[in-house]
């Protein structure tokens, strides 16, 4: 009975933080996609570089904190890939390269969504 209780506690120690992280990740990914889609991309279209830079900088700073937490739960290679695209997008914004910045932004949104979707409990992911 003692070992059964210990094994249940071990499972809870993993499952509870994972659930908390999953909710946190859902919220964060939605926030990043929303800022990029509704603030950065329209600012790029309007060639408002200051607004595009400020909105994307906000996402990047928050992403750094999110990545530190996600390193415990997710595969580091997919996190690093997303991080590289994020830095690439930021450098295109700084260079005022509208086309590449917009392309990288949409790629980034896709990567963020994949990062989130790959961890969802769906038949596709399970099998």
């Amino acid at each position, binding site marked *: 009975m003692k070992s059964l209780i210990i094994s249940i506690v071990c499972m809870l120690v993993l499952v509870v933080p*994972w659930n908390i992280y999953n909710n946190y990740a859902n919220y964060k990914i939605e926030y990043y996609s929303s800022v990029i889609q509704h603030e950065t991309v329209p600012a790029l279209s309007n060639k408002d570089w200051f607004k595009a830079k400020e909105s994307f900088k906000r996402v990047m700073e928050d992403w750094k904190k999110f990545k530190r937490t996600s390193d*415990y739960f997710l*595969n580091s290679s997919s996190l690093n890939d997303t991080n590289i695209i994020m830095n690439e997008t930021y450098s295109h914004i700084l260079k005022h390269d509208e086309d590449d910045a917009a392309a990288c932004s949409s790629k980034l949104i896709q990567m963020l969504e994949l990062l989130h979707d790959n961890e969802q409990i769906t038949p596709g992911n399970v099998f």
Partner: protein
Amino acid sequence: MLIIFIRTVLLYFIVLFVIRIMGKAELSKMSPFQMVVVFMIAELASIPIESPEVSLITGVTAIFTLMFIQILISYISLKNEKFKNFFSGRPSILIDNGNINHKELKSLRITINDLMEQLRLGSAASVSEVAYAIMESNGDLSIIQKPENKPLTPKDLSINKDDETMPVVLISDGVIYNKNLLISGWNKDRLEAELLKAGVENCNNIFLAFCDGVGVLHIFVKDEYSAYAKEVSK
């Protein structure tokens, strides 16, 4: 490299913890399934060590999940016979009262040569000596010989034997095991007196001293010129 070192140390303790929690029954490989689970745990522990891109929690989750399932199944098996039979299987009687159960042999895909080999390994020269042969759920063959082929025991000869106690180690590498002294009914004074009687003055020279089932002390003393510890109690 340091990351792999730290991960290996962490996983070493995690696997140690899991094995300790799973208990001796799982390690005794009583059923093939338990053995497979232990191998799976070992294999899973190596994944985060080999692949630094895989998070440690991923490996630990898999290990803890296996531990949880295994303990849960063991626990339910204790309570439910049908459940136990499903997961651990049930023994198969291959020789029943001296008769070979050929249907069972066929269903287990065991040839008569395999059976004969297993009987010989179990010290039965031929089928005629065997009353019962049971294939246990862990794959071992238990052989019960016919009464006329069983070795004689004191009971057969109506000889009364005194009860025996559990043999315990009293001194190992010069260290006296006080707890074992208590268990065996000895005390330090009696032990020292016995050691002196055997001509051993210094405990540090003793490699092994144990009390056998009938309460006789056996002392093995180290010799610096030899690789063997010799018994001096005789």
